[in-house]
């Protein structure tokens, strides 16, 4: 262990290694404490919270599909205040133990995003940064629709930028990423998470109904991976701010693909459900890969894809 420097700087968030977790797939972190020592991860991103609690969508919220899953959670969350109260102490300790905590911000409108971020800044000062989720496929307003245009996405980013100087990231919808990334960079984003789940539909052909609560849901898992790698590469060509690669990371090699395509850090999502220890395992596999590449520093491999 330890011949390669694995520490990376993700837009001001100093991570001891490039492994992060994808919002909504890692709860508030403590759900994993009985499985492994979470403080060994580079960062975790907590499930998006809004200024007020959201009930989310009715059941069924999930269906398994080949190579992944479709979800329709609809950003159920207890609101920032309850989150800070219930999960804050554990997360604050986690960040002291070396794992950075990025808190995700949810909202239905620019104002709601700003309100939620203000509450985070006040109630969760231990957070290393905040990720603005303008790309949830499962909410009517403030989700993917808002994040799918340069104007919509950057209006949220610009308003949030006024709230804090702390690192601010945007979770991007998987559409038109290069152009939207440029707008987000211009609006002051410190980094970009690429990509959120892809809108999909799964129909039960016997009942003729959606297999989840709404017609559309968000697709996660390996099926997203090679789409996400392409989008990370497109964003890396378009902007200078760092990228968090998200989508279908199951192994260290999947993470390595993101790094080569230009990601500074990588988030593990659905894999956390398959194996609760996946993120740590992937961190180790990524380090082994970096060693096999004969580098001294993982940063040498960021964007090292040859074409």
């Amino acid at each position, binding site marked *: 262990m330890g011949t390669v420097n694995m520490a990376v700087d993700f837009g001001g968030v100093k991570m001891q290694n490039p492994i992060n977790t994808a919002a909504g797939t890692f*709860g508030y972190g403590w759900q994993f404490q009985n*499985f492994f020592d979470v403080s060994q991860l580079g960062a975790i991103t907590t499930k998006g919270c809004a200024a007020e609690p959201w009930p*989310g969508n*009715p059941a069924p919220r*999930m269906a*398994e599909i*080949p190579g992944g899953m479709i979800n329709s959670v609809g950003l159920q969350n207890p609101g920032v205040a309850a989150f800070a109260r219930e999960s804050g102490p554990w997360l604050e300790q986690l960040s002291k133990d070396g794992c950075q905590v990025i808190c995700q911000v949810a909202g239905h409108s620019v104002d709601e995003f700003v309100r939620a971020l203000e509450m985070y800044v006040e109630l969760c000062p231990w957070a290393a940064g905040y990720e603005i989720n303008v790309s949830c496929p499962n909410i009517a307003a403030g989700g993917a629709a808002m994040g799918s245009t340069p104007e919509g996405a950057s209006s949220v980013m610009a308003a949030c930028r006024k709230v804090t100087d702390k690192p601010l990231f945007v979770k991007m919808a998987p559409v038109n990423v290069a152009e939207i990334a440029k707008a987000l960079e211009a609006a002051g984003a410190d980094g970009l998470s690429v990509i959120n789940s892809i809108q999909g539909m799964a129909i039960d052909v016997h009942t003729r109904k959606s297999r989840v609560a709404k017609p559309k849901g968000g697709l996660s898992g390996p099926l997203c991976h090679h789409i996400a790698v392409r989008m990370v590469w497109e964003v890396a060509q378009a902007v200078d701010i760092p990228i968090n690669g998200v989508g279908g990371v199951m192994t260290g090699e999947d993470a390595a693909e993101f790094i080569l395509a230009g990601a500074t850090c990588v988030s593990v999502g659905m894999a*956390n*459900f398959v194996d609760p220890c996946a993120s740590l395992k992937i961190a180790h596999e990524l380090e082994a890969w970096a060693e096999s590449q004969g580098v001294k520093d993982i940063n040498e491999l960021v964007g090292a894809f040859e074409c």
Partner: protein
Amino acid sequence: MHDFEVVSNREIADGVFSLVISAPKLASALKPGQFVNIAVPGDASSLLRVPLSYYRADAEAGTVELWYAVVGDDTRRLSQMGPGSSSNLLGPGGRGWMVPEGTRKALLVAGGIGVPPVLCLAGMLAEQSVDVDVCLGFGTASKAVGIDEFRALGATVNVCTDDGTLGTHGFCTDPAAELLGEGGYDYVASCGPAVMMKKVAAAAAEAGAYCEVSLERMMSCGFGACNTCNVETVDGMKGACMCGPVFDASKVVVF
């Protein structure tokens, strides 16, 4: 997380298997109504675990017995795991049955593959010398499981089948409602199709008996991290994997 080895895995009714696994620590930790979340290896296109209630655990032998129906890909692959093959599971998961202290007479209503957690509960109630009446419903005779096991525990068992091939022709919610109407039950428990549990809950409420139901939800993680297993209750959305799968039926809005 527990590694386990398959001790036996055999078909006990049409499409229903009994799986006995060796997992010593788990065997002594499980409580009736809890579940395990099993990784079924072999197909990288089908990744999520299979949540299964357990029927009985033998702490001394270090074994756990589960009954499952083959309904899709994962359970089909599970049915192909022979003795000696191994994998891992998460558990114990969730909250089990919370039988009120002082319970004297219980009515248990189970449908189809809802039998295992209810049979498990019956075992516990028998140890506590609670009087147990049971109503069981199956689609057809060939799919019936657990009848002998309930009887062996001393329970009075009413069997119904949808097609009349075994026991009474009809739904088991009818005899259950009748029994509840007769009164005397201080505890009712049910697991099976949503519509069945809803009817049982309504009948229990009418009879003034405390009723618990074990709800099924699509689970992505099984340990509180994903919010996909939501149950709408009068107290808001609750996760079935942590706050359930057993719920106080009077609090459940959507079964």
